[in-house]
């Protein structure tokens, strides 16, 4: 019962904040509303027994990535656009395609999974340390070791790329 109430609260917060991100005029408000979405999702992650991911969500997304966004907003000093939406037919097409995407996703989500004996209808029993940093660390450094090491190269490339892009003067 309490889980359902919390789910409804976080889901509603996430959807309302997400709508605010897309339709608000002021970019700073958009960024702050995006933080709201990220925090609501982190609450949902806790409901799903993913404590480590919830903590990462707050620290990495709401902390680091959003600070980066706000930093760029401050540096570039965006003026408020009078017309936030793209003009003309492109806007109409955008909404039509978005509705098509939503219909398709909902159709996929609501279709029963091919009569496989209800594999997705039953919730698997969880081990005691499900979603804890220790358990995730264990599989991250054994099963997923190579992807993890490659991620470090990706981040190094991103750091170098960001510095090069920010320094160079384009003609």
């Amino acid at each position, binding site marked *: *019962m*309490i889980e359902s109430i919390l789910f409804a609260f976080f*889901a509603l917060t996430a*959807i309302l904040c*997400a*709508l605010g*991100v*897309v339709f608000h005029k002021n*970019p700073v408000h*958009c960024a702050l509303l*995006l933080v709201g*979405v990220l925090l609501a*999702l982190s609450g*949902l*992650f806790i*409901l*799903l027994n*993913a404590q*480590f*991911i919830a903590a*990462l*969500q707050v620290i*990495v*997304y709401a902390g680091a*990535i959003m600070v*980066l*966004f706000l930093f*760029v*907003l401050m540096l*570039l000093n*965006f003026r408020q656009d009078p*017309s*936030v*939406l*793209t003009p003309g037919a*492109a*806007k109409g097409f955008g*909404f039509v395609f*978005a*509705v098509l995407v*939503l219909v398709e*996703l*909902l159709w996929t989500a609501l279709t029963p999974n091919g009569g496989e004996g209800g594999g997705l209808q039953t*919730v*698997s029993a*969880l081990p005691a340390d499900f979603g804890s940093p220790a358990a*995730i660390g264990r599989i991250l450094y054994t*099963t997923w070791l190579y992807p993890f090491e490659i*991620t470090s190269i*990706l*981040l190094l*490339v*991103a750091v170098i*790329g*960001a510095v090069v*892009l*920010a320094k*160079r*003067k*384009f003609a």
Partner: protein
Amino acid sequence: MTTTMPPLVAYQILAAILFTIGVVGVLVRRSALIIFMSIELMLNAVNLSFVAFSRQHGSMDGHIFVFFVMAVAAAEVAIGLAILVAIFRNKETANVDDVHLLKG
């Protein structure tokens, strides 16, 4: 514990709605920064989906995927915002309709 929990399909529907809002943002907004934020929104909707399936199957591989998605998102934001700053320096705008350097 398992009976009171919201069903998987509720999380899937929520993820679908959030993803669609992100799609709307990318398609109808013209500010490159807001488009970036909408992409983050879509990535987060997918993350929610991963974690919900992970919970359903009792396997933590979904959590690992979310971990990698976050790492890629961090790299993407760093590079993307650097490109945005470079464009703003040259053209004094972040409106994607005004950036058409590659158009002949």
